[in-house]
């Protein structure tokens, strides 16, 4: 929401004047009032620019006096995030503090105790600690803790800082960020693209350091994924080059682009032009262009007719990212499944409901004018099918829906396509729950009030309906003296979900009951040492406690446990999908999910098994299989996890030692 009047500026000036005129005793109260204007101004760019301009004047008038921000030379960058999260007025003071530091850093004002260099390194540290705001990708914890308005303030503040600040010192951190972001292979690549562009714009990356080389790969992948795309930067020029190029030249282009795509998970518009060209003129180059593995090549050879049609109908400059999804689909032999082929054929022929079309178009940042919503939808479907672990919930509290889409994409792709077709044409969805049909259009409310459209196309289509149905199922199952997910998960996700269900939270007694007994089931069901060395077959919808970096309870979150396996270093780890697209978080007690380098597949997060166990509060399992395994779980394992649990989220609950009949 913009500020429609100049009144906010006038109000601010008046309030500032009152602050200046007030005596020492009421300064604090006047500062609180002044902060309420800062709160409003920091919601807009023009407001921030105004505050930036006034920040040092405010400081000199004693705005920070008596607060922890009073001595800019003694501020701790690490603490900034905490105060921002705390909300107004702290966050408003904090924002103003950053703005004046920025002025000092840029030498626009001089502070007698703080050099410009010190201010600059302070701001760099702050930025690195707050990339989630700078990139508008808040973690689950942040999203739960902050109101929409406060998030907006933080996004806005860091947007301002990024555009005004000299970013040299944060280069290496940003490169790491790019790497970690892309390593997770998100379907929605906008953030990665923005970050890479930012680094490209603001830094000299031409050096020879490890970071330079790393970032060059990503920059090339986006802006010049081949020799000739570098030469013919202009879109039309590249098209012209393609028309005249011989097969050798095309092969070398295809080879380069295929490799960049596979290395980064990112696709450029040139790649789209190239693929469209060779699919017609040199189809034998397609496997190289998609950097296919052996299975993928065989799949292409068998189904090249359908795949060619899909490419020609779907791929475009802006819709290029689906090429990566297509390559992954081929690599997984998805076209060998008849229902998938039929589903895609069906999808090609639908007429999209106007409401759905609106949603799709709203989710695109820079759509090609000549590409239809249907083309984007097919492209989106290909992406989800190719990258099931790249599904994210965006800025929405809809982890359940995202988890469902990901699960269907892996284990029931045709069902997912069918659901996409139904919702796209009808803008409605029916699911069955315990002998009643839930019709999403007849349901009023889901978890999400206003969808954040920073989502992939399939999610934008499905989530509003899935969310409402999920919410209704939850409503129907509450009051049954057990966690509603017990009934909702199998109904929502399908027959892959075991009907056995264990939750350590006991509804009757409002306490954590028989935690050791509960853990035994978890270990008996999933730990290969105690479950008869069995591997997981299907994802398991698991409820976890989200904890802060101090281990304090924050809230609940839905994830999928995918597999439990030993790493090369003989460490047993739990691999899971965290639909919030941000696998790397700090959950306290040294529990920090990793997304790369610990045996994760792209898109997976992982934790040591016992760390994972210490955050789970509910899961599904087979009651029949697990019974004989319970006694094999050694007490030491249980004790270790119970200790972690009790000292973190457990502090927010009553603990009940009573034994429970599971």
């Amino acid at each position, binding site marked *: *929401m913009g*500020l*429609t*009047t100049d*009144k*906010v500026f006038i*109000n601010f000036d008046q*309030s500032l004047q009152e602050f200046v005129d*007030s*005596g*020492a*005793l*009421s300064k604090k*109260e006047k500062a*609180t*009032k*002044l902060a*309420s*204007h800062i*709160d*409003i101004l920091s*919601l807009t760019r023009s407001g921030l620019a105004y505050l930036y301009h006034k920040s040092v004047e405010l400081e000199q008038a004693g705005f920070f006096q008596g607060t922890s921000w009073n001595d800019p030379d003694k501020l701790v960058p690490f603490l900034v995030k905490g105060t921002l999260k*705390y*909300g*107004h*007025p*702290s*966050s408003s003071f904090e924002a103003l503090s950053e703005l004046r530091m920025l002025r000092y850093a840029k030498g626009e004002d001089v502070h007698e105790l703080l050099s410009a260099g010190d201010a600059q390194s302070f701001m760099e540290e702050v930025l690195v600690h707050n990339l989630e705001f700078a990139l508008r990708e808040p973690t689950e914890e942040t999203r739960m*803790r*902050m*109101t*929409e*308005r*406060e998030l907006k303030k933080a996004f806005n503040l860091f947007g301002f800082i990024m555009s005004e600040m000299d970013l040299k010192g944060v280069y290496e951190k940003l490169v790491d960020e790019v790497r970690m972001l892309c390593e997770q292979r998100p379907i929605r690549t906008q953030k990665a693209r923005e970050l890479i562009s930012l680094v490209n714009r603001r830094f000299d990356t031409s050096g020879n350091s490890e970071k330079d080389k790393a970032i060059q790969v990503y920059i090339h992948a986006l802006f010049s994924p081949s020799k000739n795309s570098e030469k013919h930067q202009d879109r039309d020029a590249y098209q012209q080059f393609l028309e005249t190029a011989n097969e050798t030249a095309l092969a070398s282009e295809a080879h380069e682009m295929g490799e960049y795509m596979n290395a980064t998970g990112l696709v450029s518009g040139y790649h789209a032009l190239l693929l469209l060209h060779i699919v017609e003129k040199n189809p034998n180059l397609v496997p190289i262009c998609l950097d296919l593995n052996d299975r993928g090549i065989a799949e292409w050879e068998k189904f090249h007719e359908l795949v060619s049609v899909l490419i020609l109908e779907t791929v475009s400059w802006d819709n290029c990212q689906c090429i990566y999804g297509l390559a992954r689909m081929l690599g997984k032999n998805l076209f060998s499944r008849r229902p998938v082929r039929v589903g895609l054929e069906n999808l090609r022929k639908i007429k999209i409901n106007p409401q759905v079309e609106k949603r799709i178009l709203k989710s695109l940042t820079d759509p090609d004018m000549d590409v239809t919503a249907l083309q984007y939808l097919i492209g989106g479907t290909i992406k989800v099918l190719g990258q099931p672990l790249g599904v994210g919930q965006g800025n929405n509290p809809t982890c359940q829906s995202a988890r469902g889409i990901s699960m269907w994409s892996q284990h029931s792709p045709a069902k997912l396509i069918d659901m996409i077709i139904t919702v796209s044409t009808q803008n409605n969805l029916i699911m069955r729950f315990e002998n009643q049909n839930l019709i999403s259009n007849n349901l009023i409310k889901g978890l999400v009030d206003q969808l954040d459209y920073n989502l992939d196309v399939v999610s934008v289509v499905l989530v509003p309906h899935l969310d409402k149905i999920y919410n209704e199922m939850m409503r129907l199952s509450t009051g049954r003296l057990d966690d509603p997910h017990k009934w909702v998960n199998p109904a929502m996700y399908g027959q892959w979900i075991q009907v056995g269900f264990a939750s350590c939270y006991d509804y009757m007694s409002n306490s954590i009951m028989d935690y050791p007994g509960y853990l035994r089931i978890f270990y008996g069901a999933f730990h290969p040492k105690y479950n008869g060395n069995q591997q997981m077959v299907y994802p398991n919808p698991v409820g976890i406690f989200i904890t802060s970096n101090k281990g*304090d309870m924050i809230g609940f979150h839905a994830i999928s446990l995918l597999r439990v396996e030993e790493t090369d270093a003989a460490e047993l780890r739990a691999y899971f999908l965290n639909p919030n697209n941000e696998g790397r978080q700090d959950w306290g007690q040294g529990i920090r999910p990793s997304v790369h380098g610990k045996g994760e597949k792209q898109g997976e997060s992982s934790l040591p098994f016992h760390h994972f166990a210490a955050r789970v509060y509910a899961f599904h399992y087979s009651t029949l299989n697990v019974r004989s395994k319970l006694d094999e779980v050694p007490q030491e394992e249980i004790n270790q996890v119970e200790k972690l649990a009790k000292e973190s989220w457990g502090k927010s609950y009553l603990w009940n030692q009573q034994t429970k009949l599971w």
Partner: protein
Amino acid sequence: MAKCFALMGWSLPVIESMQKTGRPFVVVSFPDFESYAQENNIPFLPYQLDEWSDTSNSLDLFEKLKAFDADVAVPLYEETVEWAGALNSIYRGDPRVLNRAFLFRNKAMMKRKALIGGLRVGLFEEVFNKEGVKAFMKRLNQANLQLDGEEDSWVHIKPFASAGTVGHRLLRSMSDVDEKCEDSDFPCLAESHLPGREFSCEAFINKGKIRFLNITEYVKLGYSNFIPEGRYLESKRDLIHKEVQKMVDIFGIEYGMVHPEWFLTEKDELNFGETACRIPGGHILELCSKSYEFDALAAFVICHDPNITEEELDEIFPAKDFKPKNYHGNVMIYPQKRQFSKLEIPESLNNEPYFVEHTLIAPYEGQKLSADRNGFGNHFGTINFKGEDPDRMTELLKHYEEEEFYV
């Protein structure tokens, strides 16, 4: 002119206002404030105001205040009204000044005095237990000619000596008496429900005459008010002025400020609720200062001075024919839920032309309200508005009072 005002109680805004006037004063309050006072050069006399003993009493305090040359005592809080009364009795050589202070501190006595003097009050009685309340309600029902099956007459109970709405309970039926009353409520004052539109005024008195009358429009008692009063109450200003002066005469109030609450009926009758003589809550004097463009806190203190000249009085108050340019209103925000963790400021406030500023603060994580709230409890902040139309002001205050800020 007073040689030195003894401010009974600690209030930063009052201290600051007094500093601006340049008049001599000393703050009498708990020893806890002493170090702050010293750091900020505030004349201060530490005194254990919650204790009455051989070493802590008005004669002793009088002696100690001699060092400051104090000759007028000003009560800032309900709890310091007797202290100020006792001191002023000595300063003015009139023991009845203290008795008058007691009048403000005992609501039954206050009502009786009002009744004798001819103000309209409800039926009232001192009660000592639940049975007493029921007997009172029964007599009230009889007087109201209740038929079988008709609802009981409403009864209010209030502690004799608490500020504003603290401990105030409305009982609508016999069963309410059992459910809502607690043994610790007694003894207290039981009173019939007064019909009419509730409002308060602040009358600044000097030499027994109203020097300045402010009328505060309540949008919702305890939540929101604005100044000056809206159109309807403004049309009754003369009536109200007369009635307040009558009350001042009956009570024999000579100096200071009274803050009575009234109920105006459709027949233009004023029912007397109660009155206080300290600084009213709800930031009323702050609003009053803004609308009438004078320092109401300083005026509050200064009009306690028996030796002030007419010229000096004229200087501190707005001119007789002063018309406020704007209405200033505020709404105090209370969490509506028992447990909440975030402050959510509605977007609509950003662009509201009447919005001035707020003092809302974020709660700490998972903050809970304790069950034993007094009166309206502590509000979490105030939103201030300013504008030219009293109807729009009313609408806004109503709207934001209902809006949920803490989720």
